[in-house]
């Protein structure tokens, strides 16, 4: 398979996944704020933290308020991580490889972008935001389903699946990092009733709530949630699972030694760790090492397979 084609498929999947994750994150936050007492409101700042673009944000928006943050995360085309930008990038990547995927894929990606753009006002306002974002989540899931069900599971499909899982891995640890720290002061007796809500929102941001309950059969508590989100082998958005997915994609690809080494390293780190015992500082440091591991993995994939880097046989 041509490197250009593989690269475009990989990025198309990453951008689509990013749009879906952002949509879910905003929806959950909107809901969460309705449940928390006003004086402990974390507001919208954590979402800017999760997006990893605080300095970019503050250079453009004077305050962190709902309207500005939502605009920044959904519809700001100057922000490359906004939902609209992500879908736009996904569309440009899909456009050039449309003939390598089932015919409807391009149409769906194109339609999804046009939907996000055409209904932007609904997303920015309060009343119809939930529906708007749900439309985006459904749109992405429809494309994933279409690909899973109709595309040959060849090298191209695995490039795509690899992109999706790397993006998931990244989002999962970003959410844990920000949401475990800033939401509520730790070990504050007075606020215990809300701890449940906090960790429920973390799970819901990852569509993990129901599956957590099924798998863990315990109430929603920090140690169990952390263990579940890092180490669960079977839940699609748990970190360990996403990394094993990347590993299985690599089985279909040539010259996989360097990326596979990065994958093994990440798996070992997670397997050896006991995140349920981490305090906030330890947790943050652990997540940092995983972030670096993901960056290395992405670089190994790029160096091995992508257009600009394929210069020898």
């Amino acid at each position, binding site marked *: *398979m*041509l*490197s*250009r084609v*593989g690269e475009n498929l990989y990025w198309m999947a990453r951008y689509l996944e990013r749009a879906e994750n952002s949509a879910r994150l905003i929806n959950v936050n909107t809901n969460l704020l309705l449940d928390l007492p006003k004086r402990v409101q974390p507001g919208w700042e954590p979402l800017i933290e999760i997006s990893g673009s605080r300095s970019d944000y503050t250079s453009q928006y004077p305050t962190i308020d709902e309207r500005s943050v939502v605009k920044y995360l959904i519809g700001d085309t100057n922000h490359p991580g906004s939902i609209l930008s992500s879908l736009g990038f996904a569309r440009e990547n899909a*456009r*050039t490889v*449309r*003939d390598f995927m089932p*015919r409807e894929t391009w149409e769906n990606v194109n339609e999804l972008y046009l939907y996000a753009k055409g209904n932007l006002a609904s997303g920015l306002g309060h009343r119809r935001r939930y529906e708007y974002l749900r439309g985006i989540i459904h749109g992405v899931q429809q494309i994933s389903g279409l690909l899973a069900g109709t595309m040959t599971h060849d*090298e191209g499909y695995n*490039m795509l699946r690899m992109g999706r899982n790397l993006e998931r891995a990244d989002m999962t640890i970003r959410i844990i990092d920000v949401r475990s720290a800033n939401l509520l002061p730790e070990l504050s007796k007075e606020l215990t009733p809300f701890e449940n809500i906090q960790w429920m929102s973390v799970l819901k941001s990852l569509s993990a709530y129901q599956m957590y309950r099924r798998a863990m059969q315990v109430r929603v508590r920090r140690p169990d949630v952390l263990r579940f989100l890092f180490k669960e082998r079977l839940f699609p958005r748990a970190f360990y699972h996403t990394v094993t997915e990347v590993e299985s994609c690599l089985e279909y*690809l*040539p*010259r996989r030694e360097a990326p596979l080494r990065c994958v093994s390293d990440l798996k070992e780190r997670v397997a050896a760790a006991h995140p349920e015992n981490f305090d906030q500082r330890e947790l943050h440091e652990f997540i940092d090492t995983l972030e670096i591991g993901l960056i290395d993995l992405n670089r190994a994939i790029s160096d*091995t*397979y992508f*257009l600009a880097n*394929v*210069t*020898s*046989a």
Partner: protein
Amino acid sequence: MAIRWGGYRVKGLHDELIRATGKPRPAAVRLCEYLRSLNDAEIEERKQASEAAIRVMGVTFRVYSEEGGSIDRAWPFDIIPRIIAASEWRRIEAGLKQRVHALNLFIDDLYHDQRVVRDGVFPNEILASSKNFRPQCVGINPSRGVWAHICGSDLVRDKDGTVYVLEDNLRVPSGVSYMLENRLVQKRIFPELFEQYSIEPVDDYPSQLYDMLCSIAPRPSEKPEVVVLTPGIYNSAYFEHSYLAQQMGAELVEGRDLVVGDDDIVYMRTIGGLTRVDVIYRRVDDLFLDPEAFNPDSTLGVRGLLRAWKKGNVALANAPGAGVADDKVVYALVPKMIKYYLGEEAILPNVPTYLCMDDKEREYVLANLDKLVVKPANESGGYGMLIGPHATQKERDEFVRLIRRDPRNYIAQPLVTLSTTPTLVGTRAEPRHIDLRPFILSGESVYVTNGGLTRVALRKGSTVVNSSQGGGSKDTWIVEEGST
């Protein structure tokens, strides 16, 4: 009220299916009877079925626009096929083979000894001012001496029934994918007719193309690596590039997918590393093919490609420089070339052509602009033309100025009244003007498509058949008379 041939007016033109008497031509009898047997609802149903098939098959051509990036338009297809009798087609086929053979000898000669110039058959000044002669290609020996591997020649038929060659497209001719798709659509909507007629098949074109490309591979190999080089998704013919690549099982590559190594070998960048490429069916124009040899600003091409080709490490189809014979001034001299190289008379005539560079012919052209069609020597797609009889005095005056300023760049021809063929308008058949573009493949052997792409001017009275300017197309049937 459906299709009633009694009301179909041929009006002093040549019609492909209906004679002046109003009766169908022998090869079209069965088709005309069949069409007459359909009522309005049945015609409408078949028309809708064809539109649905084209949508589902994704047959499109691309129109670039600022806002949407590019828009894919559904390919306009007319459900009434155009029929040519096999006996007539065999003569046309022989004429095309003869013509392309002579053209290839001519191109090879121009890039070597230029005997044709020394012998006074081809004026040196035409060569000196040729826009498509590539000095970079002098002395190169492409495999089998073939330069124009894929040629699309446009044929028209005049009032008296004579078939003329209107032009030869030797650079990157397009349209063949539409010929193939038209046949698929036609089979779906008129399967009954395919059972009754014996219609020569067209669908072996991708195999023929693939075999031809393999036959020019520079190194002996069981399965040479053949790729289709496209300028990319914004090109108006991208659908065809992608279609042909898929049909041949070849990679569809862009310039940036290829790299020429220090060993002057062409490689493509794959996820498995660099893979050697043997044959490139390039759909990128000469000047954009290699920034090292041609336009240095080109981002569509591959640096060093010409070097690799010169060394004989890769085959390019068509060869760079083949477009020198695309020139309409060169066109005028093709009958002479056939005589010169093959010692034969041209089987297919040219439309009589006046060269404005010739003093006497130019004076004739300027005095008769109201009767002639004036064309620039190196444009395609029907742009930059003057159709004298339909032009205003102001437009003609403008062309007087243009011709005097650059006589080498213009030719003139009498207006050929393109033949017509029944075309569906609503649920009735009306005459519309058409041309025909067959494709000729030259490699180890020469192959001509059975028929080609019939393009039809859908607007009443119009003779402009280009899809970018309101043209449509039809399936083209080469039919044995005996089978009707």
